[in-house]
């Protein structure tokens, strides 16, 4: 049973290897001519404005909460998809009801303009 997770382990090791190889090789092989501008904190090419420790806008809260809600909806789809062929039409209606109720939520959010950043 645990043997089936061997590919996961392999992909984990390979990605760790590639990630660290890129950093280590560029540290060893790369030439460095540091200037004051190059050593500045990098932020999308813009000059940083103030510190990073500021209060975040509450607008992120709506996005975060909506993400969680639809994440949980998604997690219910996994076991459903697994036995979909056994549930037949009954299972389809069941999940349709579930998704439609949450779709009503999405439409509500949309109509309220909560997806707008204003």
């Amino acid at each position, binding site marked *: 049973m645990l043997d089936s997770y061997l590919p996961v382990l392999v992909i984990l090791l390979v990605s760790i290897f590639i990630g660290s190889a890129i950093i280590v090789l560029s540290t060893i092989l790369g030439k460095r001519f540091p200037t004051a501008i190059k050593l500045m904190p990098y932020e999308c090419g813009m000059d940083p404005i103030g510190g990073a420790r500021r209060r975040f806008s509450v607008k992120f809260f*709506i996005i975060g909460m909506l993400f*969680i809600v639809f994440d949980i909806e998604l997690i219910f789809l996994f*076991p459903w998809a697994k036995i979909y062929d056994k549930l037949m039409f009954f299972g389809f209606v069941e999940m349709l009801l*579930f998704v439609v109720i949450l779709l009503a939520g999405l439409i509500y959010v949309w109509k309220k303009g909560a997806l707008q950043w204003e």
Partner: protein
Amino acid sequence: MEAVLFYALAAVTLISGVFVVFLRRPIHNVLFMILTMIGLACLFILLHAEFLAMVQIIVYAGAIMVLFLFVIMLLNLDEFVMPPEHRRVRYGIGIVLAMMLVVFLIPTSRSIISSPTAQVVATDSATLTNTEIIARELFTTYLLPFEIASILLLAAIVGTVIIGKRSTK
């Protein structure tokens, strides 16, 4: 092999759990909490509960932690200094509560392990995967609670919008 993996994962989970409590910077606490969640997910896989492992990573390590991070950034806890007094009282209360938790948990977990339903699921799992068993129960026996869960999520959406959104006139 499984025992070695279990102890290694349990050690990672417990140690990062300790860091969650004792590190001073809130962001570091959250990062170690994610590590704790991932450790728990691996332990679930070890228990052949792959669905729970996936939920643990997608919902807890992914979504719930976003909210934790958001709350930390909203409150800006870096400026907040813990008052040093009453530390002994706090430790005392914490130890007493932890003891009570253990006292309650041991009989509960013992009764679950020796209960007959655990064996029924165990014999089932010889032919079906864990996800299939959960799915079968969820979409037949617990159909109504499942549909009510969608209403609950709808309520969460509406509540979020009402709390977070400034009403347009």
